[in-house]
């Protein structure tokens, strides 16, 4: 910094964007590795392509706009990472590449780059893909661990990712929520539809169909707790998201078990944990105050439940996040911290009253 004279403070706590992003990536690592193992090489390839597309797009955009490259801060990598976690693991390469492009070019750089975007870039891409290519985006594969027989090897995996996947019949499956929804529409009630799928162990470890980030709830939870412990995120948003999801789910299930999944199924399936700890807590697109964050989180949870229960899509987290992102400026406008020496309305507090109290 050569802008003289430098103003106070002449000390710094040492935090940096890059460090924050590194923490988040570290927290995502166990769940990601587990996902890789569970879904084999195609998932790895898709992941690499998606992250690569994000980084490349960022590079190109910043080159075009002639601004200094900010790749070093790791935010593009993180966006790609989160996006990859929300895609079907065996999706074709072009989905990942297109998604990465949408996330960075449209979701982020179009708004003016890091810190300016209104919407969570990864979710913008996911929703755009889901709406445009509903078939590809809902083709889930049953888990086929890397170590299992018949799992595609590196080369085979590359083929699956680059060419289109083989005849889906053999491996196609539905995620838990999708399955419940389909069965429900066929007249089968959820209790029977999900059957053994709600077995707790099964859910926690998450060895079932879904995106990379929908599985392995326990790993994601561990990562989330790590972020809380390191102070990267605060408890307000995750707790509020989970509460917003669990409370209506519990009520619904209590009233009509045949139509509404239990709270545990909601919490442990889909992108609930990923969304609560990693996606809704995105700094740029969430409110700034503690109270605002509670409102924001609860809104996401509630909307997710509503979309899952009554909407057309089995999974509503991405939509809910985007909707609440749009509301963030409003929340920020109305949830302001109280300024010391002022009332919430901003008028100076009454000194005389305080003297009386004392």
């Amino acid at each position, binding site marked *: 910094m050569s*802008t003289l004279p430098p103003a106070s403070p002449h000390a710094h706590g040492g935090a940096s964007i890059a460090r924050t992003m590194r923490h988040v990536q570290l927290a995502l690592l166990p769940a990601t590795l587990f996902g890789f193992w569970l879904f084999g090489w195609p998932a790895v390839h898709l992941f690499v392509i998606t992250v690569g597309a994000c980084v490349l797009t960022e590079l190109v955009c910043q080159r075009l706009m002639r*601004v*200094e490259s*900010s790749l070093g801060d790791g935010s593009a990598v993180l966006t790609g990472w989160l996006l990859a976690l929300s895609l079907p693991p065996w999706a074709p390469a072009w989905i990942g590449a297109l998604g990465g492009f949408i996330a960075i070019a449209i979701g982020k750089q179009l708004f003016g*780059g890091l810190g300016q975007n209104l919407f969570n870039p990864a979710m913008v891409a996911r929703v755009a893909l889901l709406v445009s290519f509903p078939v590809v985006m809902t083709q889930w594969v049953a888990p086929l661990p890397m170590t299992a027989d018949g799992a595609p090897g590196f080369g085979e995996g590359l083929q699956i990712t680059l060419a289109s996947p083989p005849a889906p019949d053999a491996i196609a499956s539905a995620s838990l929520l999708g399955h419940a929804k389909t069965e429900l529409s066929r007249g089968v009630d959820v209790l029977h539809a999900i059957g053994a799928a709600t077995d707790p162990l099964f859910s926690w470890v998450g060895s079932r169909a879904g995106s990379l980030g929908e599985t392995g709830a326990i790993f994601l939870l561990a990562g989330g707790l790590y972020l809380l412990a390191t102070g990267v995120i605060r408890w307000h948003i995750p707790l509020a998201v989970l509460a917003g999801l669990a409370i209506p789910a519990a009520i619904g299930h209590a009233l009509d078990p045949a139509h509404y999944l239990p709270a545990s199924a909601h919490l442990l399936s889909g992108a609930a944990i990923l969304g609560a700890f990693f996606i809704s807590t995105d700094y740029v697109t969430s409110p700034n105050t503690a109270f605002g964050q509670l409102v924001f989180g609860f809104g996401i949870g509630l909307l997710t439940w509503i979309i899952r229960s009554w909407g057309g899509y089995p999974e509503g987290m991405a939509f809910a996040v985007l909707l609440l992102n749009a509301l963030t400026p409003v929340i920020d406008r109305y949830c302001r911290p109280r300024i010391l020496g002022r009332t919430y309305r901003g008028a100076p507090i009454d000194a005389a009253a305080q003297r009386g109290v004392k």
Partner: protein
Amino acid sequence: MLFAVVSLTLLGAALGVMLGLASRFFAVEANPVVTELEAMMPGSNCGQCGFPGCAGAAAAIAAGTASPACCPPGGRALAETIAARLGIAVDLAGLRDEGPKVAGIREDICIGCTRCIKVCPTDAILGGPKQIHNVLRDACTGCGSCIERCPTEAMAMQPLPVTLQQWVWPKPAACA
């Protein structure tokens, strides 16, 4: 899809109409703005803006025919204040502003012709015929009208030195 397109179009149209109506109904009366602007101007009626006095300039700025940056004595500070009041962007590029200035008289050249005194809108110049004149720094608005009146080029605008109490921290260089 069709539904979405149609509903968004309708929404857009409705909002547009509402904005149009609002701008009509809540349009600010012109006069108060002019008075307000006039209150912001230096008020020395020096005429450097090309208008007959500050009131004329205020009216022109309010009407949009003059730039808020048209007043040299007001400088950048005034231009910004006016722009903020009117909610418009103002191009400050053409405005060279090296901070406030006042007139100064070189005593060895002044011949005491009193021409400068006659044009000074704030009576900031002291002196009599055949006497060395002097500018009262506190009263001079820096309009510069007196400069060209001087037959001996004894007058020049000098920057008002910044004092410790008036010094302002520079704005940090804009970052991405």
